[in-house]
């Protein structure tokens, strides 16, 4: 008997429910308010000068756990707007088919050049429809609302207390051979990324002043100067790629090391 009374109570509950307003949002017509932190897709915004903010530092590509970001840059060139030399992401492919939405790429971006948006990408008929290229990512920046935070904001939230930050910052100015390694792991916010990238580019260029200075062709190197020839061969592709690199031999130490070797090569060839 108790069961039947309970059943009647249950039926009364469901009956009352009929006259309440349904909780449904009729999706395509009515869009439920999106949560502030909903992260669905990506966007590449422009910087204040109206050009792509991304400087192809590859930090996001390196940190991505799913390895879905692929950036290619064709090196530095002059900005048509500001006239300054900077690096551009010439291809930026983000494969949304394997994205886990962890937002790490946003967190490591020092130039706020990538952020996540709240609107979902439209489901695709093909896997390729879900691959975001540069155009789609830039279009997203214009058409979609950004999720809750961008790179520097997130970095500030995670910033360590000042006292601990100091030694990390001091370590930086003493790179022996690889200033590139610090570029990705740079402590947030202490330097603008653009100058930080410079050593990377320069490191490639450092051998240049020595090798092509006296125009020593590799073929002319005699066989007895084996270590010198090796050093030269290693230096050569770079030298060819960037013949104008001799203009700034800034990093003294690596240049000296290379220079010593190429001096030997010079003597040998003479």
């Amino acid at each position, binding site marked *: 008997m108790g069961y039947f009374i309970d059943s009647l109570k249950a039926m009364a509950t469901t009956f009352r429910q009929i006259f309440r307003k*349904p909780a449904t949002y009729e999706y*395509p017509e009515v869009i439920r308010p999106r949560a502030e932190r909903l992260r669905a897709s990506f966007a590449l915004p422009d910087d204040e000068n109206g050009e792509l903010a991304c400087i192809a530092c590859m930090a996001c590509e390196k940190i991505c756990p799913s*390895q879905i970001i692929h950036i290619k840059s064709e090196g530095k060139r002059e900005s048509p707007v500001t006239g300054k030399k900077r690096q551009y992401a010439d*291809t930026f492919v983000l494969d949304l088919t394997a994205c886990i939405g962890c937002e790490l790429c946003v967190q490591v971006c020092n130039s706020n050049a990538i952020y996540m948006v709240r609107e979902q990408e*439209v489901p695709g008929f093909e896997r390729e*429809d*879900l691959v975001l290229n540069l155009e789609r990512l830039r279009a997203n920046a214009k058409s979609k609302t950004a999720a809750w935070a961008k790179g520097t904001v997130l970095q500030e939230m995670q910033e360590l207390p000042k006292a601990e930050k100091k030694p990390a910052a001091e370590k930086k100015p003493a790179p022996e051979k690889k200033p590139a390694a610090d570029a990705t792991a740079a402590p947030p916010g202490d330097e603008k990324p653009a100058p930080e990238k410079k050593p990377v580019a320069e490191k490639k260029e450092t051998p240049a002043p020595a090798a092509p200075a006296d125009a020593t062709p590799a073929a002319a190197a005699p066989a007895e100067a084996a270590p010198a020839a090796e050093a030269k061969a290693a230096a050569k592709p770079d030298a060819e790629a960037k013949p104008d690199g001799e203009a700034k031999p800034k990093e003294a130490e690596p240049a000296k090391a290379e220079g010593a070797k190429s001096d030997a090569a010079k003597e040998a060839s003479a």
Partner: protein
Amino acid sequence: MAVNGNGSGDGRKRLPVVDEGALAYDHPLYDTLLNVPGLSVATTSLDALLNWGLMNSLWIFPMATSCCGIELMAAAASRVDLDRMGTIVRATPRQAEVMVIAGTITVKMAPRVKTLWEQMPEPKWAIAMGSCAISGDFYRNLYAVVPGIDTVLPVDIYIPGCPPNPEALMQGLLRLKEKVALRRAGKLPPHDDRPGMLDVTRPSIARLLDPARDRALDQQQEDSALNASSFDRSDEPEDGEERAPDQLPDAIASTPPAEIEALLRDEFGVTELAPKDGAPVVAADKHVALARRLRGMGYQIFVYVVATHFPEKTGKVVAPERFEVAYALRTVGAGSKLVSWRLKLEPGQEAPSLVGVFAGADWQEREQWDLVGVRFAGHPDLRRLMMPDNWEGHPLRKDYPADKACPPWR
């Protein structure tokens, strides 16, 4: 593995052209009707009616293997309410049109998914919901995960997200409706040909309907699905023949650890302690006796058996390849005490099985054999537990390549 697309002149790869127009079914009697002169108006309107019915009643078969399944459930609930577009969830594939693959598909699951897909009646569609189903997500290079379910069955709609929210599933179903309409009209869905992205999305095996796909692979996958659970049952125990644990006295007041130490030292000759945690290393031939003895002393819960593979070390520290098997037992009740010990095994050496002492050791030892490859001497039923029965190798050995392919599924 597979070469995708038709390489064009400028050396940039093009996207594979999927043969969407080729329906997996035909309409024999109906097609005849369509060709009868004079009936064309009637059949055209009939065609429109049939298509309308198909579009507006897409029933779902949920292939929910992980977290995306929760969103799938949420999509059927009040906020989004898939029922608005006539979509209900059927538990049997025989009555569903749309298989929603929501979650990671492992190599062991893939034959089952294939079977269920085949068991759905035509016309049918598949929706890959979420990154794992689309591409295998960041497990896509892992030995046990299928790199995208479209390598197993033809996927019609890809819903991005990890996981996609319920609205995204609804949107996917609406997109599917578009596709159903197009397919009946003999048209292809709009295809955005963006060259140069292929390397990014290419799965390690060519997907279904891809022209580059090896047709033999379809057959292999089907054969594999047909024999998904076929294994040698000859060494399986008959009914009622299962080995019962030895009869031992019930729990006695648990022994203090110092006493155990003495016992190990004096009776079982333990001299060596494992580095780091100091667990005693017991000789393999004495270890069953030790377990029996400990059980008699009140350690009645078999906690774990964990095997670890140590590959051969060269360089500064030279060490031969070996396996270590860790065991742990617990006492029953409050203030429970733990005792653990190790076995060190050379490659090929077998660890005596504890199944005779603890019934719970059965599956745990099977798991360790399956994943690490330590054999347990005297185990009644030592076969694969986690991996498919036809799996080669033991994936948790250190020398096992993490991205090893397991044909035909990856």
